[in-house]
């Protein structure tokens, strides 16, 4: 039994065709996606803009209810759970976003941002300031931040350091599944590598299960164990990362590969 299973997951959006007609138009944003991910695996998800990556990730994160199909985490069908129960499960699945300038609250210090996340899993720590501070410091060190900066605000950090804070915040709830949505696209090349190394290290240390969304195939090839290619709401190809590059099967994959800028030597 796989750790995370997507069973024929489908999301259709309907909208009126025009202002003065009652005729409906259906957009099949995610159209029958089935995928399974093992514990400790990093799955890369790639595809052009508009292929349904974001809708799929919202479905997995339970931010959208599927039209049909379901998400099964550790054998439990999340769609069957009532909304109140989903709320409690949210700490089990966390997201890392593209832009660390936008995803951190500028008015919260590193301590309050991380403490908020840690106490959702360990509410007992709220009244134990020193233990909480220790937990925050430990989390900061895990992602390679100096715990001396615990009282600082996001604007006092560089882009790469901010992304580390965002990662720490996602890990603070001790999630079962992390969905990283273009986590390095906004960063410089040299910083990109630091964050990729960190994500790999965390996977190895914590046995994290991760879905890594990116349009940069070379980054995905490096970090992912398997890659799923999405096109027009469907998964058109899934393969081991290196195999996918060496023997692309679908047209969508071939097109994505041919678009990568190549370093000429």
């Amino acid at each position, binding site marked *: 039994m796989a750790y995370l299973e997507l069973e024929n997951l489908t999301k259709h959006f309907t909208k009126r065709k025009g202002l003065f007609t009652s005729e409906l138009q259906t957009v099949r944003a995610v159209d029958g996606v089935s995928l399974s991910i093992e514990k400790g695996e990093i799955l890369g998800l790639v595809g*052009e*803009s*508009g292929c349904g990556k974001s809708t799929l990730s919202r479905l997995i994160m339970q931010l959208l209810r599927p039209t049909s199909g379901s998400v099964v985490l550790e054998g439990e069908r999340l769609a069957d759970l009532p909304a109140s129960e989903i709320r409690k499960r949210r700490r089990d699945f966390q997201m890392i976003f593209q832009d660390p300038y936008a995803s951190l609250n500028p008015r919260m210090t590193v301590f309050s941002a991380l403490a908020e996340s840690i106490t959702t899993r360990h509410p007992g720590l709220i009244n134990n300031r020193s233990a909480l501070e220790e937990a925050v410091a430990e989390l900061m060190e895990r992602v390679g931040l100096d715990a001396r900066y615990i009282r600082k605000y996001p604007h006092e950090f*560089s*882009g790469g350091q901010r992304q580390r804070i965002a990662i720490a915040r996602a890990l603070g709830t001790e999630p079962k599944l992390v969905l990283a949505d273009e986590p390095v696209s906004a960063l*410089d*090349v*040299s*910083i*990109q*590598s*630091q964050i*990729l*190394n960190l994500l*790999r290290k965390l996977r190895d240390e914590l046995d994290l299960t991760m879905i890594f969304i990116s*349009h*940069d*195939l*070379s*980054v995905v*090839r*490096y970090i992912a164990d398997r890659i799923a290619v999405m096109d027009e709401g469907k998964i058109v190809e899934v393969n081991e*990362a*290196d195999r996918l590059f060496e023997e692309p099967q679908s047209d969508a994959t071939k*097109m*994505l590969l*041919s*678009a*990568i*800028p*190549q*370093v*000429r*030597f």
Partner: protein
Amino acid sequence: MALLEVKNLTTSFHTRDGVVKAVDGVSFSVEAGETVGIVGESGSGKSVTCYSLLKLIPMPPGKIEAGQALFDGMDLLQLPEAKMRGVRGKRIGLIFQDPMTSLNPYLKISTQLIEPLLIHEGISKSEALSRAIAEMDAVGIPDAKNRIHSYPHEFSGGMRQRVMIAMALITRPDILIADEPTTALDVTIQRQVLDLIKTRQKELGTAVVFITHDLAVVSEVCDYVNVMYAGRFVERAGVDTLFTKPRHAYTRALQRSIPALQKKNEVLYTIPGLPPNLATEIPGCAFAPRCPDSNGEAHAKTRPELVELESKHWVQNCPGCLSAGI
């Protein structure tokens, strides 16, 4: 005689935290029809270099302290604002990173696209409109005749960047400055936009100054590359030389950190540390603290000058950076 000759450009920002030397004595030239790249990390001064040329930096706090930018017999840095308006957007075009924020959401594409023509060429609205439609055709926007009357939000990101390119090229500039034009786009759209810039460049003979942090993009589009670090060029070379015989430690480190060139399951190479704070005086080699060969002894104690190793291949003469094993 080069089309644009920039000599010793120095721009600083006078802030509360001190004087930030964003661009510190940069020289380069652009020949007609050529593509010149400026590559470097965020905050290295790439954009400020180009914006200084067009007086697009906020003054104050910005100040162009020294230098010359010779373009068609004029020094752009000394040009009065009225004359600058005849250059900016007419003879030197600009495209920016984010087409979402650089188009006005309240105005139709048609209004925005004919504006440069009405201002710079004084032709009638209908004539400008037909030229705008032709330009949209040329950048590959389907059904241009009707689409021109749409608003920016009705276009996708890639199409908006095409509109920006059309707008920049409609006045047939001698130079197009492209500031990270594909950074906000995904990989297939990036490919289309790069190809489009190259095609239009060939058709019109425009020179392009291409600013990016992506070395792979540089290797595809540029003829000549300037690598910028901490407000200065550390290495300048033809694109083939730069990728086959990079000399400066920073250039080599940048190349090594491209994930595509690394083996899976190995820890990715990273450049340790952060770029220096430009508000403080940097006495010697700016890259020394991050250089893998950082016992410091081998690095220059005064800011190293660029020396020409072979024809058109310049590198900062810092013994530590030249010999560092990366």
